[in-house]
Each structure stands twice: as C-alpha cells, then as structure tokens.
C-alpha cells in the first residue's frame, strides 16, 4: 500500500534513525559511524542505547542511594560520635565537626527512599531491562515511539539532577520522608519544592515509557508471537506499564496540590488553626492532610508492584533457562500478574489503618490485602515447582534468581502481620515495616536485577562476566543483606519507631542498640561486597570471555539476535512458532527449542 511505501520512502530522510549500539565502545566491529557521537550515544533513539543509559544511570543512583544509607547507619550505630575520615568534609549544615545533624539525617532518609525507588530500582528494572529486552523478546525492531523513548530517558535524567541538586539549596534536600506527608512537607524548606519538581519530571518520564511499553507489546509483536507465547518477562513489564500509566497521575495531582500549597500558599493539605513553633500559621486552612496520603498511596502501592513484577519476570526467565524446563503453570503465572496488577489499585489504604480510619473501611482494605497475597503465593509456588524435575545449573544469575525466592518469600510473609490492622497497631511505622519492604525490594528485587545483569550481560556486550567474582559477590551479598534486615524484625517487634535520628533516646530502642551496631557493620560490609561486582562489570566489558549469540542455550527471541544486537535488532525478520520455554522437549536432540526455530532445526 502506498502508506507503507510512504513510510519507507520517508524513513531514510530522517537522519536520526540510524543510531548505533555501544558495540564500538565495547569492542564490536560494526560500521555505520555516520551519526555524530552525541546522536548515537547521548540523544539516541535506539531502545538498546536508551536501555543501557537507563541501566547505567540507575546503577549509579542505586550506589548513591546506598551511600546515603551507609552514612545514616553510622549515626544509628554510634549516635553523636563524629564520623571518622570523611565526616570533616561535610559542610556545617550537615555535620558539625563530623557529628551528624538531625536535619541532615532526615534528608538522608527521605532521599535514600526516593532515590532507591524512583531513581534506582524502577529505572533499572523497567527503563533498563524493559527497554532493552522487551522489544527484543517480542521480536520488534525497536520501541513503537523511539523519540518519546529518548525524551523519557532525559526527563528521568533531569528529574535525577533536580533531586541531587536539592541537597545544595538552603535548608537542604527534602526531609519529610519519601512519603512527604503534609503539613510537615508543606512547611519544610526549599528542598521539598525541588523534590516535587523532580517527581514531576520522573512521573512524565514513566508516563512516556509506559506508553511505549504498552504500544510495543500490543502492536509490534512479530509474526506468530501471540499473547500466550510472550515470555513472562514481557507480561510482567506489560502489567507494570499499566500500573505506571494509571497509578502515577494521582501522584502528579498530589504533587501539583502540594506545589500550590508551597508556592501559592493554598491550604489543600492544611487544616485551619495550625500553630507552628508558637506562631499561628497564616493560611486560609480548610484542607485535609489525609488527602495527600490517599493520593500518595494510590500511587505508591501499585508502585510496590512496579518494583516487584519486573523482578519476577527476570527471575522466571532465568529459572526456566537454568533448570532446562518449561515454567510450571505459565498461564497461572500470567493471570496472577494481571490479577496482582488489578488488585494493587485496591489496597492503598492499608498504609493508613492508624489514621483514624473506621472499622468498615479498614475491613475492606484488610480483605483486599489478604486477597492480593494469594497471587503472590501462586507466583512463588510456580517458580519453585519449575525446579522439580529440572537439571539445575548453578551459575551466578541462577544463584541470584533462586535467592530471590526465599527473600521475596520473607518479604511477602512479613507483610501479613502488617496487613492485619490489629497487629499493625503495634507494628505500624516501626522497623518491622522497614524490614518487610526491604526484604521485598532489596534482597528481592535488587537480587533479581543482579541476576538479570549477569544473565543478559553477554547479550548486551558480547562478553561474559566472571563466574568466580560473581559467586563471591552473591554469597557475601546474601549473608550481609540478611544481616541487615533480619534484626530489624526484632527491633520492630520491640516497637522501635522508624526515622529516629538517635535511637538511644527511647528506652525500648536503647535495648536493641547492639542490633543497630550489628546491622550497620553488615551494611558497610555489604557495600564492600559490591566491589567484586563493580570490578567484574567493568573488567568484563574489556576482558570478558567473548560469547556467541546464545551462550545460555535459551529459547526466547533476544537470543536469536546477534550479541550485541545491531540497530533494528534482527538481521532478518523473525517468526515465532512456539511458546517461550520449550526446554528439554521430548524427542529432540538438543534440550532447548528456540521460539523462532523451524520444526526441522
């Protein structure tokens, strides 16, 4: 049809369409150096370059967020003692001769949460892995809207810069927790405004990203790739995209209202008659602080599943590949993901049991919370049953993927007492909560992300990472991360509140202070444990063993493309003949049967 002709005629006129991969950086030999560097690697529209940009930026932010936490851990373990070595380099607004100020501690806390969630994990899981592998796994040449994809990354980048810049404004960065509850956030220093502006950028970034993910999955699946032949990773990203698309706008609305409160002095979240530091606040009043909590958690609970679903997707890929077995209950898994996505919009107020909520409403949210635990149990069950009858290869990605299961299991199980309003009376806003959600996202999601990095590194660079360094990284990380979060359950049961600058101020917290010291030491050791990973990552870029197209003998489509895949992904269009996980099919010589392989292959 002439339209097709039109599009092909038109395409070559757009010079920006021929970006290239990092391959020349990473030792590849492909030509096409026509575009200047900045259009190939900086303002690139190739989903793979954008994926790498997201991934690298996300990893940097993860490291940064982790560093903030390591600083906090000093104050928690040794409150009031000067921070050795580096403490003297901080300005007086943060530390006085190395002794941390509570304002700075609160900034670190708020920004650790914000950075880890919005600038670290989601960009790496969705922006990085999703961008790179979703088009490859559906057999598409690129994302549906490459330009929007580029803009999405740069919105994210600007959002990140604004967040970091907020540390340097008078009064410092946001310090009202990553949840930014007003009225505290309404009356906080300038950093909070920048936090809101940064969030606005991040929200727009994820909006554009989610549009791309949805449209690419729906429209650009290659011939033969029906919905039930999609790898579970794609399903997970697809559901995630819907969560991003529909859950983030209410936070945008909330951010607009809080910005109005801060800049135009409205009172959306401020009731009448507030007295701050002995002075009556000059505001019209009439607002409601709980309005923010509703809007915020309407986003932030689906956000939890934004953090966990891509991780489940990665783990499913790696487990099937390394057990050499089809996944157990593929359809149950897909329906669980869809159900989780849907239910995640109906559980938000379980973060607000103690705000004075009535018993009927709390009963509703307790029931929905219990219901949403069922599909999560199904996901874990299918993954474990996949192991049964397999031939399990214990390589580094597999180790991380297996460790995800019990870690996520602990995270999920400890959500149970928190989801019951009565138990929440004692556990709400204690370290138990911190232990719970960190088990979900730190040894849960972040382990899955590490698994993904080790698994797909050969595809992205054409080289393998070192197994020895990988295993050192895995075992040390596993030990230390449990050393960090397991004691927090005890602290939480003891009733220790979150966000305490100096835990020794309370008698019940003082009794758990030895645990704080232990946790801090584990945290610093966990930091050290990342050194093998960093060495491995950069070393393997240059000296890693070269691999072919399909080093793991996997079945999904990304392994049908060269390593690294060229611009346009597949040298010739791929066609799909079967489901995603045809491993060890009876009667075949090889124990894997790629989706695109012909019957005779």
């Amino acid at each position, binding site marked *: 049809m002439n339209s097709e002709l039109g*599009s092909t*005629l038109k395409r070559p006129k757009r010079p920006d369409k021929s970006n290239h991969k990092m391959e020349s950086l990473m030792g590849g030999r492909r030509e096409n150096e026509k575009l200047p560097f900045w259009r190939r690697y900086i303002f690139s529209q190739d989903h793979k370059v954008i994926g790498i940009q997201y991934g690298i930026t996300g990893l940097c932010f993860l490291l940064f967020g982790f560093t903030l936490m390591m600083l906090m851990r000093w104050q928690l373990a040794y409150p009031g003692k000067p921070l050795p070595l580096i403490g003297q380099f901080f300005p007086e607004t943060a530390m006085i001769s190395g002794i941390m100020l509570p304002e700075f501690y609160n900034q670190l806390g708020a920004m650790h949460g914000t950075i880890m969630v919005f600038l670290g994990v989601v960009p790496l899981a969705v922006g990085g892995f999703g961008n790179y592998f979703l088009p490859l796994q559906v057999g598409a040449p690129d994302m549906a809207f490459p330009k929007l994809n580029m803009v999405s990354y740069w919105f994210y980048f600007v959002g990140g810069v604004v967040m970091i810049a907020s540390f340097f404004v008078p009064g410092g960065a946001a310090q009202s927790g990553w949840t930014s509850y007003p009225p505290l956030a309404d009356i906080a220093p300038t950093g909070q405004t920048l936090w809101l502006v940064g969030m606005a950028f991040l929200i727009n970034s994820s909006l554009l990203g989610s549009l791309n993910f949805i449209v690419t999955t729906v429209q650009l699946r290659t011939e033969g790739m029906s919905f039930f032949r999609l790898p579970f990773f794609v399903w997970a990203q697809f559901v995630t995209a819907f969560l991003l698309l529909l859950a983030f706008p209410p936070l945008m609305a909330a951010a607009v209202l809080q910005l109005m409160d801060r800049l135009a002095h409205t009172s959306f979240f401020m009731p009448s008659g507030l007295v701050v530091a002995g002075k009556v606040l000059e505001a019209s009043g009439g607002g409601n602080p709980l309005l923010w909590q509703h809007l915020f958690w309407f986003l932030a609970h689906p956000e939890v599943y934004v953090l966990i679903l891509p991780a489940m997707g990665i783990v499913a890929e790696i487990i099937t590949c390394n057990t050499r077995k089809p996944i157990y209950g593929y359809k149950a898994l897909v329906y669980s993901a869809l159900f989780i996505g849907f239910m995640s919009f109906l559980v938000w107020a379980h973060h607000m049991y103690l705000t004075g909520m009535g018993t009927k409403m709390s009963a509703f949210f307790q029931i929905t919370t219990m219901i949403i635990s069922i599909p999560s149990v199904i996901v874990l069950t299918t993954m474990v049953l996949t192991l049964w009858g397999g031939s399990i290869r214990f390589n580094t990605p597999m180790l991380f993927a297996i460790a995800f299961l019990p870690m996520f299991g602990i995270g999920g199980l400890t959500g149970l007492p928190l989801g019951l309003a009565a138990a929440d009376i004692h556990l709400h806003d204690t370290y138990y909560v911190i232990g719970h959600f960190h088990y979900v996202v730190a040894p849960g999601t972040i382990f899955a992300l590490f698994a993904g990095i080790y698994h797909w590194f050969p595809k992205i660079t054409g080289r393998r990472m070192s197994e020895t360094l990988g295993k050192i990284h895995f075992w040390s990380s596993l030990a230390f991360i449990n050393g960090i979060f397991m004691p927090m359950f005890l602290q939480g049961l003891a009733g220790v509140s979150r966000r305490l600058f100096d835990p020794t101020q309370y008698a019940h917290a003082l009794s758990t202070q030895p645990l704080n010291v232990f946790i801090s030491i584990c945290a610093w050791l966990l930091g050290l444990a990342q050194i093998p990973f960093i060495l491995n990552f950069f070393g393997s870029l240059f000296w890693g063993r070269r691999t072919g197209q399909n080093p793991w003998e996997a079945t999904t489509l990304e392994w049908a493309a060269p390593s690294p895949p060229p*611009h346009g992904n597949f040298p010739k269009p791929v066609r799909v003949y079967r489901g995603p996980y045809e491993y060890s099919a009876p009667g075949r010589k090889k124990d894997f049967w790629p989706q695109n392989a012909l019957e005779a292959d």
Partner: protein
Amino acid sequence: MSTAVIPYISESHPVTGVTNSKLGTWCFLASEVMLFGGLFSAYVLLRTGTLEWPHGKELLNVPLATVNTLVLITSSVTMVMSWASLVMKSLSRYRFFMGLTILLGLAFLVVKAFEYGHKFQHHLFPSTGTFYAVYFTLTGLHGLHVLGGILVNLYFLVPGSRLWRTNPEQFTGRIECAGLYWHFVDLVWIFLFPVLYLL
C-alpha cells in the same frame, strides 16, 4: 546496515485495528483521566469535609464561562472539520479549520485570562480559601492543557504539515490523534464548568 523500520506507523494493525500513535494517544488519555480524576476526587473530599462551601455561581462569572464553554465546543467541531478535510484530501481546507481551532483555543485562554485578572483585582487569590484554591488549580491545569494543545496544533498547522506531501495517511493519523487530545481537553472543561461554576 538497515535502519529500524517500525511497523503500523501509518497503517492500522490488522488485529487491533489502530495505528501505534492512536493506541498511544488513547493510553495517554487514560493517564490524563487518572490525573484529572485524582484532582476531582480531591475536590470532592475537600468539599464534603467542609461545612460550608460557597456556590460557584455567586463567586464566579457564569456568563463569561458559558461563552467560553461554547467557544471550546465550537473549537472541537472545527478540529473534526480539519481532520475531515484531510480525509477528503484538501490541505487548504484543513489549514483553514485548523487555524480556526487555534484561534478559538486562544480566545478561550484570553477570556480565562480576563477572568483571572478580574479575580486578582479583587484580591482573590488561590490562597484566599479552599474554593479559590480548587478553582485556580483545576482551571489553571486545564488552561495549561489547552495551551499545550494549541502548541501541538500550531506545529501541525505550519511545520508539521510538510508531512502531507510525503505521507498524507500518517499526517491524517496525527491530526486525528491531536483531535482526540483536543476533544479530551474540551471534555474536561465540560466537567469543570458545572462543577466549579454551577454547583
């Protein structure tokens, strides 16, 4: 090296029956519905939480807003006409109706600016009270959406219309998407008008 050719840019997907951009636009509008939905629910919560809420018609200029409503509805009609002109292969008629749409959009903003100016003259600001806070925030955000729509339409009126020569089908599709957005912005106003001015 081949460049990446993305399918279904100008022709519809055989199964879903839409182009990429149309599906994308619908998803985007779903997101926008959630944005304004969040703000509307904030309005409902704040209003039900207060004992006395002023009647919009006593504080705001209803006749002016009625005129504005008509202006925006008309602009939606001209937007459809501009798209229909492209379907009927007439770029000049398209230009006429698109220009009209932009002018009507601008007229809406000018009227809005007068309304705002009038309020400011009487020292009525967002900080005056919750009603004005809601009024200014919601109409302000809607105004930004109108402005965004005008910019998009301006782009399609002048530089963007070059695409017509090389790929008329894709260009028509783009105008359809711009139209979807414009109708959405119109629809938001049709909610805002009674909620703020009449109830």
